[in-house]
C-alpha cells in the first residue's frame, strides 16, 4: 500500500498566527462591545476593534485557502492528502451537528420538562407560588413573568413561508447534486447553471428568513426577549441562518472557481466539501422545520 507521492508537509506558514490575532481581536472586540454597551459606555473603540479583527480574519481566509488552492493546483497533494481533507471536513461537520444538538437538546428539555413542571405537572407547581395563573403551553405565548419577558402576540405558523423555505432548501440540495454530477462529467456549462440555481435558492431563503424575522419583531412582538419560546426560536433559526450564509458563501466561491477554470472531473474536493456542508445545512433545516415550526 505504498504511496508513490510523499505526503505534503508545508514548511512554514504565517496564516496560523494571523488567524490567531484575527480571532482574538475580533472576539475581544465583540466582548468589549457587549460589556461597554451594558455599562452605558462608548462602544466606538470596541466596534473598531471588532471590525479590524474581522478584516484580519477575512484576509486570513482568502490567504490561507488561497495558499491551499495554489498548492492543490500545483499537484502537491497526494491521494492521501485528499483523504485527510475528507476526514477533516466530515468531522468538522459532525462538530457542527453537535453544536446544533446542544440547542435542540435545550428545546427538548424545555418543552418536555421545564415548562410542564413550571405549570405544575408532576407536583412541581413552583409557578403557582411565584406566578399565579401560569399555564404551561407550547408555543409559550404567556410567560410566567410577563413584565420581565413580554410574551409574543403570535407565532410563525409552519405552513406559510417556512414551508416555502423547506421547499427552497430541499430543492437547492437537489440542484447542487445535479451540479456535482455535471462537474464529474466535466460539463462546465451545466455546473455553472445548476450551481447558480443553488445559490439563487439559498439567497431567496435568506431573504425570506430576513422577512420572517422583521415580521416577527415588528408585527408579532416575537423577539429574543419574548421568553423561552423566543429564545429557542431565534437561537435555533438564527444559528441555522448564519450557517446558510456561510454555506452560500462557500458555494459562491466554488462558482467563482468554476468560472476561473479550477477543478477537473475527478479532482474537485473543494466543491464536494461545500456540497456536503450544504446538505448538512439542509438537514438541520428539516430538523428545525419539524421541531421548531410544526410540532
Amino acid at each position, binding site marked *: 500500500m505504498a504511496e508513490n507521492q510523499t505526503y505534503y508537509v508545508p*514548511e512554514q506558514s504565517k496564516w496560523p498566527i494571523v488567524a490567531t490575532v484575527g480571532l482574538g481581536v475580533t472576539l475581544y472586540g465583540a466582548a468589549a462591545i457587549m460589556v461597554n454597551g*451594558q455599562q452605558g459606555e462608548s462602544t466606538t473603540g470596541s466596534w473598531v476593534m471588532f471590525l479590524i479583527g474581522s478584516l484580519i480574519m477575512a484576509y486570513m481566509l482568502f490567504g490561507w485557502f488561497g495558499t491551499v488552492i495554489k498548492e492543490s493546483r500545483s499537484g502537491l497533494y497526494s491521494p492521501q492528502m485528499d*483523504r485527510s481533507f475528507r476526514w477533516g471536513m466530515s468531522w468538522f461537520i459532525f462538530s457542527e451537528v453537535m453544536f446544533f444538538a446542544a440547542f435542540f437538546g435545550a428545546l427538548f428539555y424545555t418543552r418536555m420538562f421545564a415548562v410542564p413542571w413550571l405549570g405544575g405537572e408532576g407536583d412541581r407547581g413552583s409557578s403557582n407560588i*411565584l406566578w399565579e395563573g401560569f399555564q404551561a403551553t407550547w408555543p409559550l405565548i404567556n410567560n410566567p413573568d410577563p413584565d420581565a419577558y413580554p410574551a409574543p402576540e403570535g407565532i410563525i405558523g409552519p405552513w406559510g413561508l417556512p414551508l416555502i423555505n423547506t421547499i427552497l432548501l430541499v430543492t437547492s440540495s437537489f440542484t447542487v447534486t445535479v451540479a456535482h454530477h455535471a462537474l464529474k462529467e466535466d460539463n462546465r456549462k451545466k455546473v455553472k447553471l445548476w450551481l447558480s440555481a443553488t445559490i439563487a435558492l439559498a439567497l431567496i431563503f435568506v431573504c425570506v428568513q430576513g422577512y420572517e424575522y422583521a415580521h416577527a419583531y415588528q408585527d408579532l412582538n416575537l423577539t429574543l426577549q419574548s421568553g*423561552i419560546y423566543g429564545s429557542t426560536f431565534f437561537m435555533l433559526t438564527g444559528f441555522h441562518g448564519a450557517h446558510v450564509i456561510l454555506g452560500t458563501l462557500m458555494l459562491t466561491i466554488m462558482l467563482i472557481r468554476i468560472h476561473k477554470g479550477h477543478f477537473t472531473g475527478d479532482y474537485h474536493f473543494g466543491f464536494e466539501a461545500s456540497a456536503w456542508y450544504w446538505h448538512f445545512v439542509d438537514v438541520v433545516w428539516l430538523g428545525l422545520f419539524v421541531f421548531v415550526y410544526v410540532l
Partner: protein
Amino acid sequence: MSAVADTHAQDDHHHGPAKGFSRWLLTTNHKDIGTMYLIFSFTMFLLGGTMAMVIRAELFQPGLQIVEPEFFNQMTTMHGLIMVFGAVMPAFVGLANWMIPLMVGAPDMALPRMNNWSFWLLPCAFLILVSTLFMQGGAPNFGWTFYAPLSTTYGPPSTTFFIFAIHIMGVSSIMGAINVIATILNMRAPGMTLMKMPLFVWTWLITAFLLIAVMPVLAGVVTMMLMDINFGTSFFDASGGGDPVLFQHVFWFFGHPEVYIMILPAFGAVSHIIPAFSRKPLFGYASMVYAVGAIALLSFVVWAHHMFTVGIPIAGQLFFMYATMLIAVPTGVKVFNWVATMFRGSLTFEAPMLFAVAFVILFTIGGFSGLMLAIAPADFQYHDTYFVVAHFHYVLVPGAIFGIFASAYFWLPKWTGHMYDETLGKTHFWLSFIGMNLAFFPMHFLGLAGMPRRIPDYALQFADFNMVSSIGAFMFGASQILFLVIVVKCIKGGEKASAQPWDGAEGLEWTVPSPAPYHTFATPPEVK
C-alpha cells in the same frame, strides 16, 4: 507488535528548523508544536498552582486572614479553569503532537498548519481569561462550572470575556481533535492495522472523538449564557419559561465526557510505561482497547450524576446511578490488566514507572470515592462537600498529572537526546506523592464531616485537617519547581540517550534517534 525500523528516515529535501523567534510562530512541525504545548501547559500549571497556594494559604487556618472572600472565589474559579483547560488538556495535546506521528510512522500530523493554529489560539485565549483578573468587577468568581444564574444574572462584567475565551479554547480543541483523528485514521504506516496501534494512539483516537462531540456543546451552553447576559433571552430564567437546571444538563453533557478527555490519554501513556518497565507485553491488549471504547460510550450517558441534588425525577436518578456504576467495570478491567502486566515481570522503578504505579493505585482510590459518589442517596450527603473535591483531585492529580509526569520522564530522552537526572526525578516523585496525599486525603474526612466546597472560611472543627491539607499542598507546589529544574537541566545536557534508552520499551518511536530528528518518517516504515 513489531516493526521494521527505517532509521534513515530523514528526507534530504527538508532543512532543519528555522532560526530565531519566528520559527515558533510560523512552524508546522509536530515536534515544535508539541514542545510549545508542553511549555505552555507547564506555565499554566504553575499559574493555576499559584492560585491553589493562595486558596490553601487562606484555608490554612480558620478565619479570613489573607484575601477577601470575593477574591477567594475568583481564585477557586480561575484555579479550576486554568488547570482543566490550560494545564491538563494542553499537556495531553502536546504529548499527542510529539508522539502520535512517531508512533504511527507518519511524517507529521494530517493538517500541520491547522495544528499550529490550534496551539497559538491557547495563549490568545488565556491572555483574555487571565486579563479578567484585572478588569472592573474582577475575574469570574462562580466556580469553574459557572452555573447560571450565578454566572448570568450575578456575574461580573468580565464574564462576557470569559465566554469568548472559552469559545477560542473550543476552536483550538476541536481543530486539534480533528487533526488527531485524521492523522490516526489516514496516516498510519502500511501494515499498522487498528488492532496493532499502540495504546496511546488508541486512547487519543477515542479522546479526539469525545472532544469533537462535546466541545461544541460547551460552545452552545456558553453562547446561551452570553445571550442571557447580553441579549435578554431567558434560557436559564424561569420567569421567562427557562430553567437554571437546563444549564446544568447542557454543561454536564459536556462536562462528564470532558473528565474522560482528561484521563484517557493518561491511560494510554501508562499502558506504554508499565509494560516497558515490567519488560513484559501489555496484558490483554484487545480488552484494553474495548474497555476504552466502552468508557467513552458510557461517558455520554452519565452526566446527571453531577446533579443528583437539583430535583431531577427519581427515575432519572436511578438511571444515572446505574450507568455511572457501570463505568467502573471497564475501568476495573484496565486496572487489573495493568497489575497483570506487572505480575511476574522484570521490574525496575525509574521515575516514569514510579509515577505510573502511583497512578494505578491512587487513581483507583479516586475511582472508589467516585463509586461512593455514584450512589445517588449517598451523594445527597457528599454533594458540594470536600468529599467531591477529594475525589476529583485524586483522579486528576495522581491520575492525569502523574500520567503527564510519567510521560514526560519516559519521553524526555527521545525529545532532548539526554537522560534526565534520575535521582532528582525520583525525589520529585516522592515529594509529589507525599505532598499530594497529605493535601487531598484529609479532604475525604472533611467532606464526610460536612465541610462545604468553595468557602474561604470554615467552622472550627475542620481546622486540623485543613492545616494538614495546606501543608501538603505547599509541599506539592514547591516540588514542581524541582520538576522545572529537572526539565531545564535535561534540555541543556545530561547523559546521552540512545534511540531506545528504556530496554523494555516497544514502538516505532524508539526506532528513530534521540533526540528525534526534526523530520522523521518522510517515507513511512513497513510494519509487520
